[in-house]
């Protein structure tokens, strides 16, 4: 019922806009000055037409679905970061590198196990084997790094943790670059063999009546929902999750209650690194991202945006911000592809969201001032 209503409204708007747009153009007889400055070849007419086309239900649905898929990815990328920041107040610059390593590791497992004859379901099965292995490996890596490098820095100012993880990024990225080029791969371009391991129904579009739905998008949405559900259940339904939440609220008090907060730190850091790795495995199948060394920086920045927009260290905020950023990204990608020929449009909007949110609500959408030691 509501869907029908939305559709009618949308069509109304469409007709209205298409009626208006020539009027606007002829009436004013000018090109929009704002559009002129940045995007010289965009006229008001074209913008109006594009808006009309954008508001067609099929396109809207496409963008919405794309947005959900992107949201799922953004949430996946950012969840680990927010867990770590919420508990320890460490802004982990190495997070993107964990994702990148996860992408390569997951790709490696699939490329080694999948052959041309492997069936679709078997490939999905192997994918989840890869997810488990990557989660394990990166959790161990994260735990080791936390104990050996970050632990000595807790009593210093938070800047040093940023610096240390920044240095870590340089080392990890360069190590991966060496290893990858040792095997004759181009570190800066996406790993094509990893794309090749996708099952057929993920690589193509599924046909649902008037709309085509990319199988990959559905898979990503499902994966994102399951991960968010799992983390949410862990935080709210388990005893350890309770301890983690208590630790983020007040680490000293938690310690006073006899809980070894340092160990909780290690566990959460390992968990965050593991989730980052799993996000990497998911990205490896996505042609927009793909497994490459620059993936580290490409995922780190949106992860920061999502975490900051949501409010540093709040899980709920991260999920909402992930959806917000994903939707905006999808909308802007559509506009870039259809109306405005400015390559940086989606990216620039993402960072503009960050700036605007910080101006309007410095603590983020769901953030509480003062949480996380800042």
């Amino acid at each position, binding site marked *: 019922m509501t869907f029908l209503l939305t559709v009618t409204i949308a069509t109304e708007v469409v007709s209205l806009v298409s009626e208006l747009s020539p009027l606007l153009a002829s009436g004013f007889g000018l090109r929009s000055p704002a559009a002129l400055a940045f995007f010289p070849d965009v006229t008001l007419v074209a913008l109006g037409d594009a808006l009309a086309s954008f508001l067609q239900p099929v396109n809207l649905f496409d963008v919405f679905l794309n947005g959900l898929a992107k949201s799922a990815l953004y949430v996946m990328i950012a969840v680990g970061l927010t867990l770590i920041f919420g508990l320890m107040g460490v*802004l982990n610059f190495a997070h993107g590198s964990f994702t990148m390593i996860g992408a390569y590791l997951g790709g490696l497992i699939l490329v080694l196990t999948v052959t041309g004859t492997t069936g679709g379901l078997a490939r999905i099965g192997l994918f989840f084997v890869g997810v488990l292995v990557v989660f394990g490996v990166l959790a161990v890596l994260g735990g080791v790094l936390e104990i050996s*490098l970050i632990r*000595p*820095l807790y*009593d*210093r*100012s*938070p*800047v*040093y943790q*940023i*610096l*240390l993880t*920044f*240095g*870590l*990024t*340089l*080392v990890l*990225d*360069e*190590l991966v*670059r*060496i290893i990858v*080029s*040792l095997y004759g791969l181009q570190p800066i371009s996406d790993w094509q063999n990893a794309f090749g391991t996708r099952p057929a129904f993920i690589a193509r579009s599924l046909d649902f009546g008037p709309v085509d739905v990319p199988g990959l998008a559905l898979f990503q949405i499902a994966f994102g929902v399951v991960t968010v559900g799992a983390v949410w259940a862990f935080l709210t339904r388990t005893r350890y999750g309770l301890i983690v939440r208590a630790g983020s609220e007040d680490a000293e008090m938690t310690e006073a209650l006899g809980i070894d907060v340092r160990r909780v730190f290690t566990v959460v850091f390992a968990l965050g690194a593991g989730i980052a790795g799993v996000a990497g495995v998911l990205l490896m199948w996505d042609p927009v991202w793909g497994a490459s060394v620059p993936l580290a*920086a490409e995922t780190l*920045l949106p992860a*920061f*945006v999502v975490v*900051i927009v949501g409010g*540093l260290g709040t899980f709920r905020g991260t999920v909402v911000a992930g959806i917000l950023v994903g939707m905006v990204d999808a909308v802007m990608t559509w506009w870039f592809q259809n109306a405005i020929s*400015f*390559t*940086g*449009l989606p*990216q*620039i909007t993402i*960072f*503009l969201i*960050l*700036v605007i949110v*910080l*101006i309007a609500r*410095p*603590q983020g959408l769901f953030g509480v001032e003062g949480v*996380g030691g*800042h």
Partner: protein
Amino acid sequence: MAISPGSGPETTTNDDRPETDSETDDGAETDGRTGAGDETEAEGGAGAEPSADTRAESEGGLESETAPAAETGTRSARADGTLVWPARYVREHLVHSGVLLFLALYPGIYTLLVNSPLRSELLAVLPEIETMVAVFYFGLFAMSFDFISGYTGYLDFGHAVFYGIGAYVVLLVATGKVPLLPAETPFVLVLVLAGLLAVVFAVLIGAVSFRLTGVYFAMITLGFGQVVYVFVRGWDYVGSNPRDGIAVSERSGFEIGVPFVDSLDLAIGQLTGDELSVLAIELSTTEVSYYMVGLVVVICYFAMQRIIHSPFGRVMIAIRENEQRAAAIGYNTFRYKLGAFAISGFFAAIAGGLFAGFRRTATPDNAFFFLVTGDALLAAIIGGFGTLAGPLYGRLFDEGVREFLSKAGEGGGLLPYLREHLSEAVLGTELLGGMTVQGAIETFLNGHASLYIGALFVLFVLFVPDGLLGTIRARLGGPVGKCLPDRAGEYVPERFERYWKGLER
């Protein structure tokens, strides 16, 4: 907000006292010297700062006292007549002069050493002149980063915006794409214009960003930086392929010197620069660039140093140590932060302009990307956060290691050295899994300097958190320019002591 007028005479009295007297300083604070009061206070409070550092700063000198020393020195000419201010000035600047002298002689030393019997070893170890030019301009950028981040404590992750503005303004003017400014506009003038444009940007960005603190400030500046970066990367006004940046082909070399006077300036750049022969010394284009870029950097360094030692700089440090307290005393900290940000943006743009002038090309990725700021951060931490000269040494260290461990620098480095000196047998030896020594060297030394820099950086953060200069300062118990002459005084032979003491306060 005016700065306490009492600071002048009080600094004078401070100078009368022996160096270790910082406790009595505290007493003096109560009656009006505000900025420094916070620093001394923070000495006990903030554990992160090296205590020697803060103590040193509350005594009124960082590297050494430039103009305040001279100023107060004249006013407080001692009754015994031992202190003559020019002499004192010389003494305060002994270390500065030493470093400058060394840098001035470096091209000569390099040429001499590289032609000595130890040729190949030294070629591998010493940074080339070309590398030194890069150290200069990027060191200036790192210093400007330190100026805002190290002295006010606000980590600016979008600092590359200003560097990029400097580079792009220079290149856009040179390609004739800026209205009203012809391509042949004197370089020095363009540099200043670029700096002023950066000031405008800094005020705009800062006005919004300085409402936030801590991680949020770092993130909003990162956001602004990336907005500008992405915009520039897609800005097709600069050329058909904006991702590739701009390159200047037509314009003659960028000249540094007095504008409009041909005989008083020298062009920089490796291919387009001027050559010069003074007396019997022939200077190549790279060497001329070295001196001219170095000259600008040194001037900028002294300008920033002067600002840090001014009452304005005191307030900056006060903001770093305890902003609420500085505000409570009555300083409008927002304005001071904004001012410091604008100044630092100005010098960052100068650095970017020098970079563009020397290289004649810049891309969004090596001028605007957030990792450019990351490099400045690296240099600042390695050299010493909150020491103005530190980032320059940090960058020297950084570039030196890079050049030594990867073949980024065309000439020297470990890789060519090993190739030349290891015998065929050694090179052919198999290590693990069929990889020969040669293969291992190629794999691990060829262009992978980031690995070693990153590892060194992690070690620095863990074990040398004060950086090179900061640690030396902590050892000496004060700024190098102040303590080294004092230390040296102990070793002066007795019959010369009169002259040395004459230089003492």
